[in-house]
């Protein structure tokens, strides 16, 4: 198990009259090597949960185990730097964290903080930048001069450069154009398939969740409502209605085809797969 939450509760402004109970005794286990989506309405506790993965918030009750790290409520937890090296967190609008004078220095900042030598850090940063499509000509530019999409990719490269085992992305596509979104999707799928990284992605885009996430965690009012197979969730009419989920466009299309008498297996994830199935059905 990569991550295990045991009865985690977190309260914002606990000593104020307007306190807010953001996580209510959450139990959650996330398996290693999978892509897990974290979905739910705004204010359901997703971001609070994500911050616990880096001990940026420490629970008021409960215990968290991440790889071989432990975070317990009410204790002075140690080894946070190691934890943050193992779990890379990409925040919403990560471009706001850029501050070094050049693109390469900024991407190398994380690995250097985590104890890599300067040359090693720069090598890792360069690799990460190139894997995200930031070419060598841009390495010596000031990050502030780049476009919004480029800035975000530099910021993400800065996290990947530290080679974390678990990568958490909080709304990585917010404010990006479709091409940028597609690139990000392909990136985290390849990080998972080719390099075995455990990926957790917070998202509002159910189409994206449906096409590339193995598992889905659905949150509502500070609790986990569903945790399991993504396809099973979005093909279950009652679960969708109960939680007011937006049906992925592909599922919508599949349902309509089925009404017309086409047989479409529920394992179809992408539009390409669906087209292939239809072609086979028509061919036979």
């Amino acid at each position, binding site marked *: 198990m990569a991550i295990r939450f045991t009865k985690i509760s977190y309260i914002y402004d606990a000593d*104020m*009259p307007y306190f807010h109970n953001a996580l209510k005794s959450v139990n959650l286990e996330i398996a290693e090597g999978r892509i897990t989506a974290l979905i739910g309405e705004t204010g359901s506790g997703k971001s609070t949960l994500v911050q616990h993965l880096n001990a940026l918030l420490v629970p008021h009750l409960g215990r968290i185990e991440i790889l071989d790290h432990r975070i317990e409520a009410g204790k002075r937890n140690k080894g946070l730097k190691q934890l943050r*090296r193992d779990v890379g967190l990409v925040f919403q609008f990560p471009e706001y964290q850029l501050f070094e004078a050049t693109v390469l220095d900024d991407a190398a900042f994380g690995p250097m903080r985590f104890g890599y030598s300067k040359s090693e850090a720069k090598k890792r940063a360069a690799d990460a930048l190139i894997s995200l499509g930031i070419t060598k000509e841009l390495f010596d530019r000031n990050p502030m001069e780049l476009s919004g999409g480029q800035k975000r990719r530099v910021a993400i490269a800065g996290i990947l450069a530290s080679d974390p085992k678990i990568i958490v992305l909080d709304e990585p596509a917010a404010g990006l154009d479709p091409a940028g979104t597609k690139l990000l999707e392909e990136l985290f799928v390849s990080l998972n398939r080719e390099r075995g990284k455990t990926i957790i992605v917070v998202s509002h885009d159910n189409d994206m969740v449906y096409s590339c996430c193995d598992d889905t965690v659905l949150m509502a009012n500070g609790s986990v409502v569903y945790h399991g197979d993504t396809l099973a969730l979005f093909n279950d009419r009652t679960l969708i209605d109960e939680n007011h989920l937006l049906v992925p466009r592909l599922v919508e299309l599949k349902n309509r085809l089925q009404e017309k008498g086409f047989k479409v297996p529920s394992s179809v994830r992408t539009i390409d797969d669906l087209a292939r199935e239809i072609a086979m059905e028509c061919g036979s």
Partner: protein
Amino acid sequence: MNRIAFGKYIPTDSPLHRLDPRAKLAALVLLVVSVFVPVSWYCYIPLALTAFLAVRLSYLKLRFVARTLRPILFLMLFLFVVNALTLKRGEVIYEIGSFQLYSYAISFTLRIGARLFLMIVFTTCLTATTKPLDLNLAIEYILRPLGLLRFPVHEVAMMISIALRFIPTLSMEAGRIMNAQKSRGVDFEDGKLLEKASAILSLAIPLFTIAFERAYELADAMEARGYVPGERRTRYRKLRYCSGDLVLVLFSLLMLAAMILSRVLL
């Protein structure tokens, strides 16, 4: 970022929340002046009772008030050391080698501490029960006579209210950036001096960038809504006095008068 308690508005519906901000501001000024008048220690009893009453009437938790007071403990300690070394009046209480501690050093430190303590409690009761924008209206109202001297009262008030409005926004952004940098291995709490410097830089540079971006956006938004500096503007919300305001101001006036009287007579 949520740790900063001083000056924070607490949205509840207490008796003090319902009073007029102008009355509360006037009362604060009167009470703070009262705090600095008395000479004998028992004059602080009615002031302390007033402070306690104010805390109760604003529905503040004592723990919250205690948090706003924490910073003055350090100040007190520093003050005590300076006083102990410089003030040589009263009786000798304690002696180590050539160093003598005089009673006056202690009583003087305590008195300053008590004054700061009361001042902060009163101020907290104002800021916790008054929305920053209401407070700003009150300041604008009080400064209005300066307009006769061509002082741009309204523009200054607008600047203050914008500054106040952006404190929570920027402090939230600061929290976010700090989290992002912590995730990248920055240690804001401990670490070597050089590391600390780079930690502060990693917070300050992005924060400046955001502040400038916000400023441009706000300027555009204000222009789009037809804001012209110097133009006469009407108000959506009008302030209105109630009987409670009169009671508050009269009470504060009486307190000040009593303190001045005690100083003259005793």
